[in-house]
């Protein structure tokens, strides 16, 4: 082997290696009439149909008076979005079969044996799936706009055009990055196609939302959607890069759900101490020991998850500050909160507020445990983001009311000490720990624990959450609920009650 070639390859940048793969795949796609003909139709014929539709719709609407012109005008950006979206839907088809299709055709192993890193392979494949449909989409948009200008003399404002182009690009990126994740984690093209509904359904809903926003002319909201999509795309790309590995692709032969195996693995992770959780053959560690859980497992788990704990703490502090900030912007009218002479039955009337089922230990406890469970569930579908948001809301309210009472002339420290501290000193740490472990569940999809694939990593963090939840969070929440229902009202009435 020529030494020069070895040096040359080691020096070559990741992008140039990825582009070798991209070029080959693009050529392959360009040779496939099943891809080219539909893309050509969507690029060259579909925009003209949309132009025709826009003209007909405009003329129809204007027959009912010039005041309706806005409807016709709002139709143009909507059709612009549609013209851009249809060609990029092909990126999903290409991306879905990018790894698993090659595996089925046995052409993947020679590629995996090349001196190419996982990241280069991933990038090359992703670009290949992205470039052709995206170029077709831009071309379609250009043709559509050319047609509109010719027939109606209409051109979008540059900001609107930028939004649509960005939306199209980011949507393609989200679909491709999601599809590549699916493709690298499934064992057959059929399985990948079936799983594609997890990409198609949210995208279809998103397009509907975008359409409504374009009709309403809510262009500011579209910027937020673009930002959100960029975050999702980045998370999906990171998830793909982290979870993509040669082992998984080559070794996996079946991807059906085996509940018995899943339960066995979950239970193993749950009962074994954290350091030995993945040692399946270590039967000695599977004995369930409550003392060990409290003295070793829980402290070890909390130490290990310092990062999500820190993130939760920082975000919650931020939420409180934001709550406080909004209190300064929207101060309540003087006298709207009367803390001077709370009636002795102030807490007995609380159930009528409807926030809690009833102001009792059981009611508060059920509400709080439900919230943490919901946070874990929502965390799974949102990479952990919704778990955080769920806890941010009460903390923002705490910040809001603390500053409000301060603006109304009360001592904020006394307010916190009376209303929050007695039970909060237990409830808050429990909620923070619970949310941090819920956040870890969502993050496991993007960043599985070292040495584990996505599935096993998910089971491990789920088992850790369950362990922490059952043995730490639930008891703490119960104690906090008892204090909140019985002790906090006494303290509040002692400090603020009518004398």
């Amino acid at each position, binding site marked *: *082997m*020529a030494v*020069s*070639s*070895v*040096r*040359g*390859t*080691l020096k*070559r940048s990741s992008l140039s*290696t990825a582009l*070798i*793969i991209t070029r*080959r795949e693009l*050529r*392959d796609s360009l*040779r*496939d009439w099943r891809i080219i003909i539909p893309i050509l139709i969507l690029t060259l014929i579909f925009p003209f149909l949309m132009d025709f539709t826009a003209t007909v719709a405009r003329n129809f609407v204007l027959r009912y008076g010039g005041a309706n012109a806005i409807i016709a005008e709002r139709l143009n950006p909507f059709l612009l979005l549609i013209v851009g979206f249809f060609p990029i839907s092909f990126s999903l088809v290409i991306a879905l079969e990018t790894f698993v299709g*090659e595996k089925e*055709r*046995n*052409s*993947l*192993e*020679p*590629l*995996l*044996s*090349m*001196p*190419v*890193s996982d990241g280069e392979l991933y990038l090359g494949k992703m670009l290949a799936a992205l470039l052709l449909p995206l170029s077709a989409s831009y071309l379609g948009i250009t043709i559509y706009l050319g047609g509109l200008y010719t027939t109606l003399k209409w051109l979008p404002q540059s900001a609107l055009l930028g939004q649509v182009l960005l939306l199209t690009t980011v949507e393609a990126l989200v679909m491709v990055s999601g599809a590549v994740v699916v493709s690298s984690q499934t064992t057959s093209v059929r399985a990948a196609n079936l799983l594609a509904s997890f990409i198609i359904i949210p995208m279809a809903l998103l397009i509907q939302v975008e359409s409504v926003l374009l009709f309403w002319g809510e262009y500011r909201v579209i910027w937020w959607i673009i930002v959100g999509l960029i975050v999702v795309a980045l998370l999906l790309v990171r998830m793909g890069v982290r979870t993509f590995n*040669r*082992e998984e692709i*080559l*070794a996996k032969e079946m991807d059906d759900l085996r509940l018995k195996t899943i339960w066995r693995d979950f239970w193993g992770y749950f009962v074994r101490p954290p350091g030995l959780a993945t040692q*399946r053959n270590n039967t000695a560690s599977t004995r369930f020991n409550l003392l060990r859980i409290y003295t070793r497992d829980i402290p070890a788990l909390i130490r290990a998850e310092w990062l999500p704990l820190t993130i939760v703490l920082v975000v919650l502090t931020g939420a409180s500050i934001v709550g406080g900030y909004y209190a300064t912007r929207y101060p309540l009218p003087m006298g709207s909160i009367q803390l001077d002479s709370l009636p002795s039955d102030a807490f007995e009337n609380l159930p009528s507020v409807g926030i809690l089922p009833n102001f009792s230990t059981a009611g508060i406890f059920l509400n709080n445990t439900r919230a943490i469970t919901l946070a874990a569930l929502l965390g799974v579908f949102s990479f952990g983001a919704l778990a955080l948001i769920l806890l941010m809301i009460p903390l923002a309210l705490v910040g809001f009311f603390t500053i409000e009472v301060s603006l109304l002339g009360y001592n904020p420290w006394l307010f916190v000490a009376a209303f929050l501290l007695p039970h909060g000193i237990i409830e808050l740490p429990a909620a923070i720990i619970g949310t941090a472990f819920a956040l870890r569940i969502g993050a496991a999809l993007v960043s599985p624990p070292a040495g584990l694939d996505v599935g096993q990593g998910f089971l491990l963090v789920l088992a850790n959450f369950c362990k922490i939840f059952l043995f730490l969070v639930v008891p703490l929440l119960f104690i906090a609920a008892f204090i909140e229902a019985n002790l906090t009202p006494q303290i509040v009435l002692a400090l603020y009650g009518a004398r």
Partner: protein
Amino acid sequence: MIETVGLTKKFGDFTAVDRVDLSVREGEVLALLGPNGAGKTTTVRMLASILKPTAGWARIAGYDTVEDAKMVRHMVGLLTEFPGLYLRMRGMDYLNFFGQLQGLSRPERAQRSEHLLKRFELWDARDRRTGEYSKGMRQKLALVRAMLHDPQVLFLDEPTSAMDPHSAKLVRDAILELRRDQRTVILCTHNLNEAEMLSDRIAIIRRGRIVALGTAAELKARLLGEPVLELRLAQPLDGLLEGVQELVQVEDHGDTWLRYRTAEPERVNPRLLRQLAERGTPVVTLSEVPRSLEDVYLRIVNE
């Protein structure tokens, strides 16, 4: 050139390769034999830095297959069990693509491709799409791909399985030439004659473990016992058998022939022939009964 210590690969609870210790020197051809699912492909995938070992380690020319994966992939050429070509690509374009990934310059790619395509009689088909190739042609093109960057080590999985006798001979000749050029080859095959013909040593793998390793002769001696010799005479054995049995242990005999087993043919055979000559018994042939590698293989895999 290739060294493994305790090389192990587990998929969940299943152990595909179990503590494999192997050392293959430069210029050696090692045949890796074993039933389907024995762990041959997984072993090769680990050696080619495609899979990471669960335990143990492997080095190719001193490079660790995990730590120096990229370097190892430069050093090796892999012919997979299925050629798995890109069927829309032309033969030359296909080689060009893999040559680029291996870091070969344009002239190097052109020169090596031409040399190898001509050698494997694919030059005339270089501008045809690989989808139009026959199975044997596809297999040959895959082999050309594996050899394109002139690797130090080649892993060949069933290199002649889909080929006609002429193409298979081309490939076998190429493997022998690789050996002469001091290239190291690991040959996974179910064709035992081919393994015996081409390899310096043979490793038999069963349930992930190497259960036999040595030259064909060593394995035969170890597993099938001492060589069996067959003596054919020009006349019936009448009266001879007792005399012969004083020298050797006769295993079987017919009217004019007998078979015996001996660990010391160089000592026993001259004495036997001398005895026969003294008696005036005409000898037609005295030869070793050929024992096939298949016998060795079946004995091991059926254990």
